[in-house]
């Protein structure tokens, strides 16, 4: 890679938008080229300034209330527009039956083991996403608010039958802000809470049934990104509305600790 190419790729590089091969090329060039170092430094300095949560504007409560109270009006006008009838088209019932039949057929032909694996995965994805959403809606995001991993980790002792790994990645833009106890898959789990700009990442940790290190699997549900991986006898589930690239970067940081 030459300097011009490095210049062209520096932005997707710091944004985690390059594939692994390209990212390695940029990384190597930056390591060896003293001329391109200042470019990386400039981007990093800028990123540090832009990470300041005070740059985020919060919606005023008055506007929030105004919009929520305006929505029923929108409902009634929508009803007028469509004549107030809830119409089920004549063809929709047979169509739905045919679709259901097709799904059943499809399932029968699929590998049995895969279905079980996948359905467990999907059920867990649903659980971790709804737990993530609950943690944001209710006032129960944190049981132990602390940016210090050495405060958060001992807090779990005595509350859980296992001791989850607790790490802070503030240097990489993922700040540990605390932890709480949660309940996933019928048991108590550790939830670590990280902040990326104004976005929250919930990292659920519990002892793994498989007990082997596996590459991360990604899921998407209701606009939330979910990543799942195993390491050192623990299952990790990271959920957030940060983009998939950033969540992947977060998971990579965590997995590097293996």
């Amino acid at each position, binding site marked *: 890679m030459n300097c011009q190419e490095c210049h062209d790729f520096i932005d997707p590089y710091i944004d985690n938008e390059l594939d692994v091969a390209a990212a390695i090329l940029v990384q190597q060039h930056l390591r060896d080229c003293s001329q391109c170092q200042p470019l990386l430094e*400039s981007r990093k300095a800028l990123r540090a300034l832009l990470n300041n949560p005070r740059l985020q504007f919060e919606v005023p409560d008055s506007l929030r209330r105004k919009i929520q109270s305006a929505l029923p009006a929108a*409902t009634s006008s*929508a009803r007028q527009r469509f004549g107030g009838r809830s119409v089920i088209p004549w063809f929709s019932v047979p169509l739905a039956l045919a679709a259901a039949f097709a799904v059943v057929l499809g399932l029968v032909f699929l590998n049995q083991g895969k279905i079980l694996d996948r359905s467990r995965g999907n059920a867990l994805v649903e659980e971790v996403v709804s737990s993530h959403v609950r943690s944001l*809606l209710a006032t129960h995001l944190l049981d132990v608010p602390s940016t210090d991993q050495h405060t958060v980790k001992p807090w779990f002792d005595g509350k859980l039958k296992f001791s989850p790994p607790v790490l802070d990645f503030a240097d990489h833009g993922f700040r540990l802000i605390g932890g709480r106890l949660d309940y996933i898959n019928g048991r108590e789990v550790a939830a670590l809470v990280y902040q990326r700009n104004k976005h929250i990442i919930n990292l659920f940790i519990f002892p793994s049934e498989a007990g082997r290190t596996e590459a991360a699997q990604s899921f998407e549900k209701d*606009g939330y990104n979910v990543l799942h991986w195993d390491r050192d006898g623990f299952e990790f589930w990271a959920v957030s509305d940060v983009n998939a690239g950033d969540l992947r970067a977060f998971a990579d940081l965590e997995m590097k600790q293996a």
Partner: protein
Amino acid sequence: MMNDEHTRARFETLMVPLMNDAYNLARWLMRNQEDAEDMVQESYLKAFRFFASFHEGTNCRAWLLQIVRNTCCTALGARKVRQKEVPIDQENDQVEDPSPLPPASLIKKATVEAVREAIEALPVDFREALVLRELEGLSYKEISEVIGVPMGTVMSRLARARHQLYLILSERKEHDHL
């Protein structure tokens, strides 16, 4: 077909929690609170009207922010015509500044106010790309959906936005020292 109750409930679950993101984008694009509030309100009513065309599995944040962005751009465009501003054609200006970058130490101590002013000074095309990436945390693909340009354009606008922002902040710092 979804009934009204169900539609309203889905909208509450998917779109209402995104109001901060919507407001943040509108506030950065319009550069003042009053206009931003109008834009967010208009966008939510539009989003509710178009919600029937929202399909499960679509990226909700990109979908909503696209509506907010278009609402803001329409308002900004109308204002531009009224004020007879000369549109700045930044896209054709592809010549990179050949001068060496000022050292990063110059901008490290910039205040939040300075950063805010510098972002607001960027041309709107650059500002929206920067805000969507750095302050809303969107991926290039999502940004390309929201502003309706190819990923390559997103990449080059971001690069130029960051370059300009960096120069504004380092110059400002020099002025502060004088």
